[in-house]
């Protein structure tokens, strides 16, 4: 009997924390999303789907959703293509390659909160670094973080800068995994650089690309630190992203019901999206055995 239970005993410590701080919270959020629980309802009251209806009627919610989609899409597209491009270049060179790796990767090891502060300082109007050089070149000053049309892009730039080195390193792992004989065979067959990329390299690293794509989706939907430090969601909600919105609702306005509802929406959205991607693209990915 004890022998049969033994494997589960090994799993118990990890499973215990996993259940209490990952799975239970998910169900707790779903449960709480059916309650009004805020400053006017200090003890929670069951109200069915009213939180969801309130949110869907609220233009701020749609604005946040739009911002998040723009943020995710643009960071994914730009940082993945740039990272792949850089990985291919780094893979080509020998001399200086560790300098390039260190220079491109270091943003990964500094906290986003610290990075956001440095970038905020670069973005300061008039005497910040960017405006200073723009002014020197004769361009007008740009209000990087206070202009509702530009602020989200300023935040996106930080997100790309922070993770590009990490994705580059992951792509590099994929590139270094391609057997040299395969590339040589393609060269012997007379394939030019572009053909080698589209018919050999890109298919061979597809499992890496797929993996990076998935972590990029999850990562970009979690972006909050730079929003908190740089803009607090403003101006006019133009940089308010989903996790910051959760924070604002639950911890600034003490609206826990809405916070739980937003959490539920985010998790369901993530799970549906990721399983959809696994079903549609995941099958076509090449996995080496």
């Amino acid at each position, binding site marked *: 009997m004890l022998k049969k239970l033994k494997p589960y005993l090994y799993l118990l410590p990890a499973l215990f924390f996993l259940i209490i701080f990952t799975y239970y919270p998910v169900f707790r959020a779903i449960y709480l999303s059916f309650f009004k629980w805020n400053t006017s309802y200090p003890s929670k009251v069951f109200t069915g789907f009213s939180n969801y209806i309130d949110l869907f009627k609220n233009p701020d919610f749609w604005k946040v959703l739009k911002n998040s989609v723009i943020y995710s899409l643009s960071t994914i597209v730009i940082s993945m293509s740039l990272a792949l491009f850089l990985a291919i270049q780094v893979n080509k060179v020998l001399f200086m390659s560790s300098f390039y790796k260190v220079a491109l990767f270091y943003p990964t090891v500094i906290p986003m909160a610290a990075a956001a502060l440095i970038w905020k*300082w670069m973005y300061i109007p008039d005497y910040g670094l960017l405006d200073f050089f723009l002014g020197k070149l004769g361009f007008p000053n740009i209000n990087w973080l206070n202009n509702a049309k530009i602020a989200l892009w300023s935040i996106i730039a930080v997100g790309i800068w922070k993770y590009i080195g990490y994705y580059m390193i992951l792509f590099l792992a994929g590139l270094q995994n391609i057997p040299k004989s395969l590339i040589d065979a393609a060269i012997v067959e007379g394939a030019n650089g572009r053909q080698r990329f589209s018919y050999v390299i890109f298919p061979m690293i597809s499992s890496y690309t797929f993996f990076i794509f998935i972590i990029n989706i999850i990562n970009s939907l979690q972006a909050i630190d730079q929003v908190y430090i740089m803009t607090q969601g403003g101006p006019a909600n133009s940089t308010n992203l989903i996790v910051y919105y959760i924070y604002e609702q639950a911890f600034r306005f003490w609206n826990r019901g809405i916070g739980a509802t937003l959490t539920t929406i985010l998790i369901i959205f993530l799970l549906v999206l990721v399983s959809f991607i696994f079903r549609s693209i995941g099958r076509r990915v090449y996995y080496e055995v």
Partner: protein
Amino acid sequence: MKFKYSVLKRLVKHNILSHILLFVISILVLIPLFLMVSTAFKSLPELLSTDFHWIPKKIIFTNFRDAMEVAPFGRYYMNTIILVISILAVQLVTISLASYAFARLKFPGRDIIFLFFLLQLMIPPQSIVVPNYITIASLKLLDTKLAIGVVYFASAFGTFLLRQAFRAIPRDIEDAAKIDGCEGLKTVFHVFIPLAKPSFIAFALVSVTYHWNEFFWPLIVTDTVRARTLTVGLAMLTQATESTPEWTLTMAATIIVVFPLLTIFVIFQRRFIQSFMHSGIKG
């Protein structure tokens, strides 16, 4: 014409174009780092003067002293170091036990439970702060280091990584250990963990980096300097000086926060990059 062609050929042959591109982009990526260092050693009057120099006219160190006076960075350091080490220590125990079970034992429901572990990768801690905060509050843990750490005590990522490493260990070694009287828990600690050392180091580097740099969850569950970590302390400092932001002081404080990890990274860059490279993806 002929000359031009040979130049082009040489450029391609020695990857000169790649070097130029990589060099320019590397410098662009390094600019924030240069700016941080340059600002931290400047005096405030020089910073506010109209001209900009990467290298300060007069290099001063007082910004660091001032930053240490404005905020208790010593305390934040202690908190962060204790936190990062304790999380790693607990994680090592939970993940090696679980990985051993997944890699070597046969039992009903193994694959389902493993999937259940992996699903955690899709539910990052940031997205469940609201219910977790409520749990932590009802456990009366708010404003403690345990509150920050406890949500990370199980790591799906670590379990996955170690399971791969454990599976690669030959069965013969395990059998030999068995003959010598090593079984169960003893095998895990005397055979599996020592043999999977590279994976442990990779995991440790990733875990320490992640938790040293973490900001949002510690921000929410801490209220006072008692448990506050470096990143949260840094943000508090800038909010305190918001009306007249002293960027010289802020950048000095930023250096105080990023310095240890950045230094370790530069020294052990190969190991670091290898760890991040293979941690996510192998297998």
